[in-house]
């Protein structure tokens, strides 16, 4: 006995086959749908005015998990009320951000229209993937940058916003963390006279303080104040980007640099920096001093990046440290009134204070309307009003990148305790740190990530005693020269 054929004439096998094929087709259609350009959500309403013309659209902003983004993420309502645009913010650790941005730019679609464009890890390697913002500045139908780009601190605009050409602007300065000297004022005042007597100089940090004095102070704390603080100094010397930052301050102070014409290579940047100069006598002397300094630092220094160091300082593990000035808000909440700030000490040549600021850019993969909508966000996020609001934010908030904000009476008043804007307590110190003779700008070159890795790896070897400072500097020089000569292929 056999079953009759189905009334429709379709065999069970054929039916199952068809069902399988149909499912596959649906899955494929779904997958392809998922690959569709994500920018389709931006629609223009030409008659709605400059700020409201993209009302109802959705923008994606990708950022490092930094203070200003924390403040904006905590309160995006003003932007949505002003523009009618829904803003999604993705915050990531810096290396994860760089990956996402690189892959997004490679895809040719703009999942993220607004980009936190770190000058060294995003702007320099992927400048071709960012919009030259001058085209949007020239668009009369769009809101203009309040007070013009001239209101941005010039060094910030150059370092965070431009690449190679002084005319192009790829990003608007968005944040400006800078490494400065953070110290326990309470402990320095308590021991000031004893230290002055023992060391033969006034230990209070100031413009004339030197790295040799810093070392002597750290050692004095180690030997004499263990009941108050376990170690005199702490550093962000983990095998990480932070180690390169920490060392660079000393390198510049001793007159060394990564390449010839370091100010130009760090400011506007270049695609061909020339031979590495880390094997110069000044760089080797700096490495010798750094190695000596780390030998008396808190042993945890070798495992701390900036966050680890910030936590250790706030927990009272060290009396002083070089760290990003945006940790002031955290210091003030954990050690209220006990911390003060100064530019980093001078070496034989100058004081070098690593600048770590970043700009806000727009993906070049965006459609015309997407980039115009993203421009609204860029203008809003870097406006004086929002920079002031960030300063006041309970979420932390960064410090302004605009001259005009620092001149506001309420900001000037907040430079002294009690301050409703704890990060601005660092303003006098960072203002000196940003002066052209004091600012430290690492090389802005496309292959920086690989050079950076070579630098902090060799420094880490030096600090654990695997290599001597001069050998470490020469090995780094060789590696950087190889990397630079290989060139940067990913965006060519």
């Amino acid at each position, binding site marked *: 006995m056999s079953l009759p054929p189905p009334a429709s004439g379709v065999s069970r096998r054929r039916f199952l086959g068809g069902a399988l094929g149909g499912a596959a087709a649906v899955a494929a259609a779904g997958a392809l749908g998922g690959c569709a350009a994500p920018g389709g959500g931006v629609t223009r309403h030409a008659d709605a005015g400059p700020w409201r013309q993209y009302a109802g659209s959705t923008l994606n902003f990708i950022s490092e998990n930094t203070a200003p983004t924390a403040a904006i993420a905590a309160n995006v309502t003003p932007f949505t009320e002003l523009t009618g645009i829904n803003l999604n913010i993705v915050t990531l650790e810096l290396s994860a951000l760089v990956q996402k941005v690189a892959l997004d730019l490679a895809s040719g679609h703009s999942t993220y229209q607004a980009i936190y464009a770190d000058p060294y890890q995003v702007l320099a390697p992927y400048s071709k993937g960012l919009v030259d913002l001058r085209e949007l500045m020239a668009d009369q139908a769009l809101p203009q940058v309040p007070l013009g780009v001239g209101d941005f601190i010039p060094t910030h605009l150059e370092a965070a916003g431009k690449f190679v050409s002084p005319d192009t602007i790829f990003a608007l300065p968005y944040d400006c963390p800078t490494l400065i000297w953070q110290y326990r004022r309470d402990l320095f005042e308590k021991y000031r006279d004893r230290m002055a007597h023992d060391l033969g100089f006034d230990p209070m940090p100031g413009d004339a303080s030197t790295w040799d004095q810093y070392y002597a102070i750290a050692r004095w704390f180690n030997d004499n104040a263990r009941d108050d603080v376990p170690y005199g100094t702490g550093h962000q010397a*983990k095998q990480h980007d932070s180690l390169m930052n920490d060392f660079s301050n000393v390198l510049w102070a001793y007159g060394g640099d990564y390449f010839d014409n370091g100010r130009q290579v760090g400011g506007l940047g270049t695609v061909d920096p020339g031979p590495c100069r880390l094997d110069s006598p000044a760089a080797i002397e700096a490495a010798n001093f750094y190695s000596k300094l780390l030998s008396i630092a808190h042993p*945890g220094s070798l495992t701390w990046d900036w966050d680890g160091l910030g936590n250790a300082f706030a927990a009272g593990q060290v009396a002083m440290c070089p760290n990003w000035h945006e940790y002031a808000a955290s210091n003030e909440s954990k050690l209220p009134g006990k911390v003060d700030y100064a530019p980093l000490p001078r070496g034989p040549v100058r004081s070098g204070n690593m600048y770590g600021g970043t700009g806000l850019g727009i993906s070049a993969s965006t459609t015309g309307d997407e980039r115009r909508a993203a421009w609204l966000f860029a203008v809003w996020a870097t406006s004086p009003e929002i920079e002031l609001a960030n300063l006041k934010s309970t979420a932390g908030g960064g410090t302004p990148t605009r001259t005009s904000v620092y001149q506001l009476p309420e900001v000037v008043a907040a430079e002294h305790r009690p301050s409703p804007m704890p990060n601005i307590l660092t303003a006098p110190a960072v203002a000196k740190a940003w002066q052209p003779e004091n600012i430290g700008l690492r090389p802005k070159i496309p292959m920086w990530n690989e050079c950076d890795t070579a630098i902090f790896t060799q420094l880490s070897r030096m600090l654990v005693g695997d290599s001597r400072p001069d050998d470490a500097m020469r090995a780094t020089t060789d590696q950087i020269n190889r990397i630079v000569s290989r060139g940067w292929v990913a965006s060519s």
Partner: protein
Amino acid sequence: MTTTAPVRPAPTDTAPLRRRGLRFEGRLLTPGVLLLAPLSLLPFGFIVVMSLSRVHLLGGVRFDFAGLTNWVRVFSDPDVGMAWLRSLAYFVLTVGLEMLLGVVFALCLWRVLRGRNTALSLLLLPMFVAPVFVGLLGRFLTDSTFGLYAWVLRHLGIETDMLGSQGTAFAAVVLMDVWEWTPLITMIALAGLSSVPLAIREAAALDGTSGWQLLRYVVLPSISSVLLVALLIRSMDAIRYFDIIWVTTNGGPADATKIVPVRLYEVAFRFFDLGYAAAIGLLMLLVSIVVARAFVRLLGRRGPAR
């Protein structure tokens, strides 16, 4: 009334397949292969091509043929060579310790009659934690500012930071992996032990064997096939170990914990040197296959689990 016999569908659609040798099993496999092709085979082909190219990202991914440049670099790069040596040390230490401790714990649990399930549940807990959280936990416990282990060491007069020197950092990441994955070996070994026939054990006892002899000549041979499977599983994991190291030490200090997967990640996603990364990745794949084949061959020689 005339009836016509149902006409069987002409075998035109299946006959050619049969003629080409695609039999019933092959046709059953076809949907799976079709699904796997876009997920595995095409990317694999892509990576092979990548390893022979310089890869440009911006403006759409573009490959420029570079011949064997990347492969020459893989075999001449001292950093990659050192990473392989560290990987080998890491592999031997983690897999060795996990197998040893896992079997010891399983034997202990096997002997426990009351509370075995509770003890096993507690022992298995680390296995259910995501590796990245194990790394974070390890980092917090060893942090010199607020870490419990650091605090204990300080009170014992040891002022060093565990993740701050090469030897201790390497030991720390090995121990974190061992802590997480020993329970897996315990579970697998315990399952094997449960299947050792009671009759054989009783016969051995009647023959007057000591506890060690019973273990050496009866129990371990009985569970050797199961242990080989456990070894295979852990070996594959150990070769591609990444999370804990990335979270705790970032490969440092002084590259002491930079094993091959960490180097691969760095080359691919920090330097975006994707052609070179593809070559490193393919070499890793090759090593994984060789190790897996060695274990599978060993398993085949011993026959199926008894």
